[in-house]
């Protein structure tokens, strides 16, 4: 079984995307053997009121009768009014399974009081918080797109301030982030998961690969698969799985076991 932690549905204003609808994404998931995918709304990232995008996402999943394939995450901006009500509605009425934050688009710090309250609420509701390090690589950003990525120092502080909440950190230099967060992660009850979408499994320069460095610092029980479909080709993720040298047991954890535990599937 393969569960993907990082996919999107919706319009991207800065480059033409293919397969960015539920109807387009589902055949790609079939092609790659992805049984289930955590998904969020790109529209929600760009609408002033993120809740409109969250609603669109759920409607699209329902229209495509794909509730058993997608694990929807709510995009919430803690600096916009009624964020608390919105998150509760997303989880209790729309069946959303996680919270996704974009501080570098919505222009706030993760350490601001509203951010901390929102993340604590997610912990109380027993849903994980997904922090993508970026949506696209800023080196090639559109001139109107954000110039920022996730700020890891803020994440470190947030983890300490919200010790019970589970986190997923994706699409960034996970091995370096895991090293930075290693100490704080050990001091808290909530779990921290990382994907490996930007890491190489081949040893080219350092004594070990970036992927192995992630395994050493995060532990195999905290590594998950994220494709970043439809933004990126999925094949590089499978090259990584092919050449990572994982045991069958560890492969099961990375491809589905760890997320099954997180989502209680």
């Amino acid at each position, binding site marked *: 079984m393969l569960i993907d932690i990082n996919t999107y549905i919706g319009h991207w204003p800065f480059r033409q995307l293919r397969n960015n609808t539920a109807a387009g994404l589902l055949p790609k998931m079939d092609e790659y053997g*992805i049984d289930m995918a955590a998904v969020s709304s790109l529209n929600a990232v760009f609408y002033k009121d993120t809740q409109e995008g969250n609603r669109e996402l759920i409607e699209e999943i329902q229209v495509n009768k794909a509730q058993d394939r997608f694990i929807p995450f709510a995009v919430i901006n803690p600096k916009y009014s009624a964020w608390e009500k919105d998150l509760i509605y997303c989880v209790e009425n729309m069946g959303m399974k996680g919270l996704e934050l974009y501080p570098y688009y919505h222009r706030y710090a993760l350490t601001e009081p509203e951010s901390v309250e929102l993340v604590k609420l997610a912990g109380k509701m027993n849903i994980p918080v997904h922090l993508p390090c970026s949506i696209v690589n800023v080196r090639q950003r*559109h001139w109107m797109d954000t*110039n920022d990525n996730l700020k890891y120092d803020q994440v470190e502080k947030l983890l300490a301030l919200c010790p019970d909440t589970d986190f997923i950190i994706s699409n960034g230099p996970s091995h370096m982030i895991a090293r930075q967060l290693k100490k704080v992660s050990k001091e808290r009850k909530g779990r921290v998961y990382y994907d490996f979408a930007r890491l*190489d499994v081949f*040893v080219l320069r350092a004594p070990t690969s970036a992927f192995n460095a992630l395994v050493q610092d995060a532990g195999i029980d905290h590594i998950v698969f994220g494709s970043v479909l439809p933004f990126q080709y999925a*094949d590089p993720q499978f*090259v990584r799985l092919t050449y990572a040298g994982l045991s069958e047991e560890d492969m099961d954890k990375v491809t589905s076991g760890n997320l099954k535990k997180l989502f209680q599937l």
Partner: protein
Amino acid sequence: MIDYTKKLREEKMKLFKENKVVNWHEHVWDDDDGKFDAQQSDLLVESARRAYMDVLVCSLPVSGGSPDPDVIRRKNNIIAEAVDRHPNIIKGMAFVNPGYSREAVAEIERCVNELGMIGIKLYNQYFISDPVLHPVIEKCIELDIPILEHAGKQMSLPIDQPFISDGTHFAKVAEKYPEAVIIMAHIGGGGDWQWSLKAIADCPNIYTDISGSVYDEGIIEQTVSYLGAERVLFGTDGSFSQGIGKILAANISEKDKIEILNNTRFSRYLERGAY
């Protein structure tokens, strides 16, 4: 549900296993003492063999400042050591600083004629369209060797490489020197790749390599659409998983993939050099 990892391992990687694979963009490095890091080169070669790569074209550029000729000679001597250590797989490219025009031309001659290197690598010391490069380009034309130039349309701020060449600079030099063979480096590591592809689309002597850590969906299809597979080279530049994966994923013909993995327009360069 399909096991795509198994499919990739058992079926898709046949593309690499059954065809010649020439990686036109890799590096070997010096250690903290400025000596050849032989262990790093061994790791690189071991990884390349695991991924069925047959040739690694390597350079050792200086990425900051304006290095003087003595520094550059030491760097190129390290490349020669790497070729000596792994003669069956590593080919060398000489790095030069066009700002030291006379010395740069002499270094190209030394590296090609004495050390068996097969091309030159330029970094971001000058735009490739800067007239200061003319003697270097003319020497490469005379020796019939390719030029691999670090490239990118930098979009993230602040701009930390003010003289990095993007596609428009390559288009200018193509007009001035249509007989030169120039590779616009790492389409997957040079910022706005669509900008640069559009700029060089009509420049038949400007090539690109697919290296870099970026593997945006569609990047290979658009590269082939703008340039044709015959103007595209396989490369990794420190990102093996990404380089292999994007070629496997691309929705282009098998024939085009094979051409990219071993671009036949560049075969003659590989016949030269130290092995």
